[in-house]
């Protein structure tokens, strides 16, 4: 009946007009989505990009009316143009914004017309139901299939999303799956009823780059097969450049700019868009500050040498020693050198052993075998690997850590002054008035106001908290800082700023960095040399520019080819796949 109008609408499947969503709170109403309009076309991908808190997720949830309480749609329209066989107003589209969140009609649209996948593949699946049953549930609900049919179809869907041995996989639980497999299962669930719109809310953010590339490929191929409209929400400009047809840039609930992806990357209209794109591109090259510093001063002596460091974890002890204990090798004989004043990156996917190596370097973990030689301020060399923990204290002041999660690594019951001052207070170095002055000095160094000292961590944003953590780390005047993914919890614009801060501290304090990350762009920006890790071993070490432009090891090649480049013209570069073990 609607052939003509559908053609006129240029295959528009879903149209959002002037959407406003608010969260009433005690301190007044928070407008999370403010006058947002865009439309989704069949077979096309629309990327909504923005930093955390920009209202992109709330927009997506408004469409399905699955907002967290107390959020509600205040005004605007969400027009769904394709409605298969559900009784609605005779002609014309259905306005989802006017449906009640619990009504039958919106429920028949959820999962059937419009399906959604989420960011956290771990917690987005029920831990106590079999994967097959969770998928079959959708089919039984919307398609009225019998239990048996639905199960068979679930197995079929798992096969379509590329899960090997789908029959066995359907019978498993989500915690037995890897992150990538879970996201595949989520996609299978979303595809069950052949929806006309797929909403993907940061579906690859929690995944490794190689897994991300595979999931993106999967979504692409399924979209082409079924002529589906995809609404893809992300904060990653690189991903946008790789998959989008159209882009919507959001900040503080408002749409700043929207348009064709090639046009936008070519000629961004809004200054914020320009900032986002250039921010991503800046990170994709060496930091000017670092190059300038290296030019004026050479890299120093060898300061830390790890030789054949091996770390085994006991998984389960056998009863009475009857069988050998179950052991997992976290680190396979890794050797690494760190020179004074250099930035050494350790890059790899989750589970590759990079954090284990970092902890061994600091001797927080006991080594199973190998040595870690550290030459101290007086040039005396000592093997940290064989020292008992009681003698490690002075070295722990020389080698300090900044952690990934700025929310978890600061004690919420201590003021910033107490947090930053603690290492110096504990060592007996400073106290009272002197300590207070030193804390103020440190806060100034990391770019925080002196007034921050008396406040608690919850009063600060993620980026500011990470500055507090950095101030704490540099307090006892260390020589080496081991930074374990210090920027991965931060928004893109804060990443470069934090890295620049670390670089300027390096110049002022003569620091060396061991920088653990999964983000190749950050390596290129920040690190002089890089070690690539895979399955507990180091596969390649070298100058970071050389490795980024001309990787030798096939694993490094596959890793680099999976990184989404922030340039839509560089799409479809051939990907290298690597899956062998390095044994």
């Amino acid at each position, binding site marked *: 009946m609607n052939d003509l109008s559908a053609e006129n609408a240029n295959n528009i499947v879903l149209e959002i007009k002037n959407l406003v969503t608010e969260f009433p709170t005690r301190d007044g109403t928070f407008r999370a989505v403010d006058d947002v309009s865009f439309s989704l076309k069949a077979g096309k991908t629309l990327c909504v990009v923005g930093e955390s808190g920009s209202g992109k997720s709330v927009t997506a949830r408004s469409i399905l009316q*699955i907002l967290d309480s107390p959020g509600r749609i205040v005004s605007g329209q969400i027009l769904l143009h394709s409605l298969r066989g559900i009784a609605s107003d005779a002609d014309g589209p259905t306005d989802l914004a006017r449906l009640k969140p619990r009504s039958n009609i919106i429920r028949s649209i959820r999962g*059937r017309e419009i399906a959604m996948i989420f960011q956290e593949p771990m917690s987005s699946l029920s831990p106590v139901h079999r994967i097959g049953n969770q998928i079959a549930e959708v089919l039984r609900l919307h398609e009225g299939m019998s239990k048996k049919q639905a199960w068979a179809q679930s197995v079929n869907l798992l096969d379509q999303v590329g899960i090997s041995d789908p029959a066995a996989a359907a019978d498993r639980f989500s915690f037995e799956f890897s992150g990538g497999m879970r996201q595949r299962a989520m996609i299978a669930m979303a595809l069950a009823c052949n929806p006309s719109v797929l909403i993907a809310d940061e579906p690859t953010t929690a995944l490794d780059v190689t897994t991300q590339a595979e999931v993106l490929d999967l979504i692409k191929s399924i979209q082409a097969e079924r002529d589906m409209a995809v609404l893809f929400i992300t904060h990653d400009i690189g991903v946008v450049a790789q998959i989008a047809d159209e882009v919507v840039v959001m900040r503080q609930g408002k749409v700043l700019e929207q348009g064709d992806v090639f046009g936008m990357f070519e000629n961004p209209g809004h200054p914020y868009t320009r900032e986002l794109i250039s921010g991503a591109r800046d990170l994709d090259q060496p930091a000017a500050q670092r190059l300038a510093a290296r030019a004026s001063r050479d890299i120093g002596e060898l300061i830390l040498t790890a030789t054949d460091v091996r770390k085994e974890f006991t998984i389960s002890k056998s009863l009475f020693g009857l069988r050998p204990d179950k052991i997992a090798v976290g680190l396979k004989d890794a050797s690494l050198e760190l020179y004074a004043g250099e930035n050494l990156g350790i890059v790899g996917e989750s589970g590759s052993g990079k954090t284990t190596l970092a902890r061994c370097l600091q001797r927080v973990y006991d080594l199973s075998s190998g040595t870690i030689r550290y030459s101290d301020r007086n040039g005396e060399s000592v093997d940290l690997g064989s020292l008992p923990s009681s003698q490690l204290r002075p070295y722990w002041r020389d080698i300090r850590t900044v952690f990934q999660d700025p929310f978890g690594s600061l004690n919420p019951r201590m003021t910033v002054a107490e947090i930053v001052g603690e290492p110096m207070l504990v060592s007996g170095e400073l106290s009272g008035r002197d300590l207070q002055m030193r804390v103020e000095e440190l806060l100034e160094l990391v770019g925080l106001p002196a007034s921050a000292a008396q406040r608690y961590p919850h009063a600060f944003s993620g980026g500011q908290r990470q500055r507090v953590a950095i101030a704490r780390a540099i307090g006892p005047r260390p020589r080496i800082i081991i930074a374990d993914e210090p920027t991965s919890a931060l928004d893109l614009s804060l990443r470069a700023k934090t890295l620049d801060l670390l670089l300027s501290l390096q110049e002022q304090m003569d620091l060396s960095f061991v920088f653990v990350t999964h983000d190749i762009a950050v390596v290129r920006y920040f690190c002089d040399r890089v070690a690539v890790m895979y399955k507990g071993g180091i596969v390649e070490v070298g100058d970071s520019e050389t490795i980024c432009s001309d990787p030798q090891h096939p694993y490094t090649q596959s890793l680099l080819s999976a990184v989404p480049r922030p340039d839509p013209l560089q799409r479809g570069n051939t990907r290298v796949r690597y899956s062998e073990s390095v044994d």
Partner: protein
Amino acid sequence: MQAPPGDFVTALSASLTARGEQVDLVQLESIRERFGLDQPFLVQYWKWISGVLVGDFGVSFEWRQPVGELIGERMALSLILALATVLFTWAVALPIGVYSAVKKYTIGDYLITTIGFIGLATPNFLLALVLMYVGVVHFGSDVTGLFSPEFRNAPWSFARFKDLLAHLWIPVVILGTSSSASIIRIMRANLLDELPKPYVTTARAKGLSEFKLLMTYPVRVALSPFISTIGWMFPQIISGSVIVSIVLSLPTAGPMLLTSLKAQDMYLAGSFVLLLSILSVLGMLVSDVLLALVDPRVRRR
């Protein structure tokens, strides 16, 4: 059992003296000898525990009857009472806890919370007295004991079982009130933890009805800590029901345990304690097995 000074005989002579009767020292000595109370503690214990292993719990001093006969039915009735109470508690606490969590911070939730705290704070025996009063005055029913007089010593039959059910509800309600109140709180807290989790949103995005998704996902997951309550509820009900049992004169294990302890009736008290310990261990086992059935994460580890 041996810790308090004296033994069954001294306790007996004390109670005889209290009643103003003559105490014959020679006779007491012969009782002591007959029961083997003059032997060292370890010998007495060995005699008893080796009997227990072959099903002989020894003889009660006070009742002059084998312990097995004395406590058999009482333990069975205690067990029935405890089971009924657990089932009652779950039946009451589960839906109320779910309601309370889903409608958190509404009038309904506050009302339930208030009633719950009152239930938690009311001593069981007080509730027993009130219910007895209400039962007798307003319903004219026979509320004490677990059986009507004509069935009290009758052999087991269907009619006797029906009679038991008719009497059982009062102690079940009394014992169940306070444990329900605490389990409602547990259920509410568990569910409140689960409700904001992403898998609930996933289920909602599938198009499930609010009730069905609630029951299938968060309630199912929140059930795990709920099931582990069975482990501690079981022994608690049996030993915690002593006062209520005395007030309602229930023929369960509690009151007899108390008198046997007072009279230092060693074998009787010892057997009770032993059986209660076994019950606690069994309760834990049952809850662990149930937990593994409900939660696959427990099974695989």
